[in-house]
């Protein structure tokens, strides 16, 4: 496929992409390289014999992502396993017919591991042919083409709501800081809970921590009682929203749903689709959460995090990327809101 054609397919139209995915470094950096010795086949007619024989007698499991042959050259052995002057002996003692190759071996750089993205693949492919199985979803993330304009508008709306939470919570003296959080259940497209800093009361009550506890309140839980919840009026539960803020948001966002899906207290009747912690929820924050909050969101099994401004103590891009630690049992996606003029939203933060 020509590269011009591919670009057309991947980017349907030039859309504004105000949300930048925060990805693991291994997806952004070049594929690590390693050095191997290669030999040249004397007669092109014996190519298939050489490959067959090498794969049988001298397989290289750690470099299985590489093709064994490049034009008339074959991959023999990693330079870390063998000195150049020992290659001949190595091939011969392992039963390989040495007469099929020229005896001057060459050192080349190749991909040490399989490339994960197309961009990485295109770079290492130039060094030595390589297998690559593109992950469609991942490609959309790395090229930042995951959201269509409709989805972008939805995310922008919730982000502007988080900004409103920040300003209104301060006006109402609920918080002393400029930070707001909106937790959304994308399955029912509804605002489940709100958050803001209460660290003037408790140094651990950062916006995410308050939001997480407010979500718990929609599931007959919660540890911090800070407001009298609104009594249930519909089939959705409004316990996660501070009543005073809810009133204001309802006026400013008349087309947005509020409330969490009803939660069964009786474990016997519990359906698999019942809310469990923040499973499946999206969280919109005006500021990047700190390390503590980033991990709290992992524990809470959030699905996606959108944040506005980066924080000096941020755990999702600034100090570290907590969400890409492989050993953790849960991972969420993170998007930073573009801080350039392209997105007027963030200027309000």
């Amino acid at each position, binding site marked *: 496929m020509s590269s011009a054609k591919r670009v057309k397919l991947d980017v349907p139209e030039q859309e504004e992409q105000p949300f930048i995915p925060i990805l693991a470094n291994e997806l952004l950096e070049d594929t690590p390289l390693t050095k191997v010795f290669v030999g040249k086949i004397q007669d092109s007619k014996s190519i298939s014999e050489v490959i067959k024989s090498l794969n049988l007698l001298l397989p290289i499991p750690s470099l299985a992502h590489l093709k064994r042959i490049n034009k008339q050259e074959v991959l023999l052995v990693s330079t870390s396993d063998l000195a150049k002057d020992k290659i001949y002996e190595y091939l011969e003692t392992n039963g390989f017919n040495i007469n099929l190759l020229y005896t001057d071996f060459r050192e080349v750089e190749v991909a040490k591991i399989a490339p994960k993205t197309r961009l990485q693949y295109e770079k290492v492919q130039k060094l030595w042919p390589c297998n690559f199985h593109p992950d469609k979803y991942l490609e959309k993330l790395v090229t930042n083409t995951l959201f269509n304009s409709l989805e972008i508008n939805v995310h922008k709306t919730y982000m502007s709501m988080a900004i409103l939470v920040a300003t209104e919570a301060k006006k109402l003296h609920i918080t002393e800081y400029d930070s707001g959080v909106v937790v959304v259940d994308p399955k029912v497209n509804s605002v489940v809970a709100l958050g803001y800093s209460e660290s003037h009361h408790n140094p651990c009550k950062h916006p995410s*921590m308050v939001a997480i506890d407010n979500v718990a309140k929609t599931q007959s839980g919660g*540890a911090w009682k800070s407001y009298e919840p609104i009594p249930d009026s519909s089939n959705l539960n409004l316990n996660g929203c501070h009543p005073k803020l809810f009133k204001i948001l309802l006026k400013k966002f008349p087309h947005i749903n509020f409330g969490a899906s009803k939660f069964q207290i009786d474990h016997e009747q519990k*359906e698999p689709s019942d809310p*469990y912690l923040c499973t499946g929820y999206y969280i919109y924050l005006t500021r990047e959460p700190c390390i503590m909050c980033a*991990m709290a969101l992992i524990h809470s099994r959030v699905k996606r995090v959108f944040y506005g401004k980066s924080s000096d103590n941020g755990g999702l891009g600034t100090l*570290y990327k907590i969400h890409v630690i492989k*050993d953790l049992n849960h991972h969420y996606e993170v998007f930073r809101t573009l801080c350039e003029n392209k997105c007027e939203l963030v200027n309000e933060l």
Partner: protein
Amino acid sequence: MSNDANSDISAVITLADHEQYFMEKAFFYARQALDKQEVPVGCIFVYENNILAVGRNEVNKTKNATRHAEMICIDEILKHCKENDLDFKKMISFVDVYVTVEPCIMCAAALFNLNIRSITFGCRNDRFGGSTVYDVSKVIKPTTVVKGGYRACEAMELLKDFYKGQNPNAPLPKVRIKKS
């Protein structure tokens, strides 16, 4: 793995008598958590050799995954300070934490940010540990001294007992119904 001068979490450690007493208390609350079908982690906060706060995991009770034993103790100390008109920030920096399991990344960050004086724990936390899984001290330069490895096997056994049983709050696994 952290090998900072003020942190030692890899060794099996022996504790002074008064520290052993505090750890025994922490184990008491860990076992209590297990009885309540919570992840069995127990924690106590000590100030000038007095126990000021005790905590055990309350995640399932509160439906809040951040209600770890350490976070509950922090809230208790805060309450104590408010009730007695004490300076929380100052007081907490003289607190020694005894906890049966290495604090997770979240709790380690919270405790480091509060300048807790020391943390003594039982077993390592291979799932979430704030040193073992990701070394929080690399980015939040703490003044806190961390040591671990006291009665580690016992602390780990408690966790294993819990994970053998089913977490009552976890959603039921989706069962695929075969079409007949």
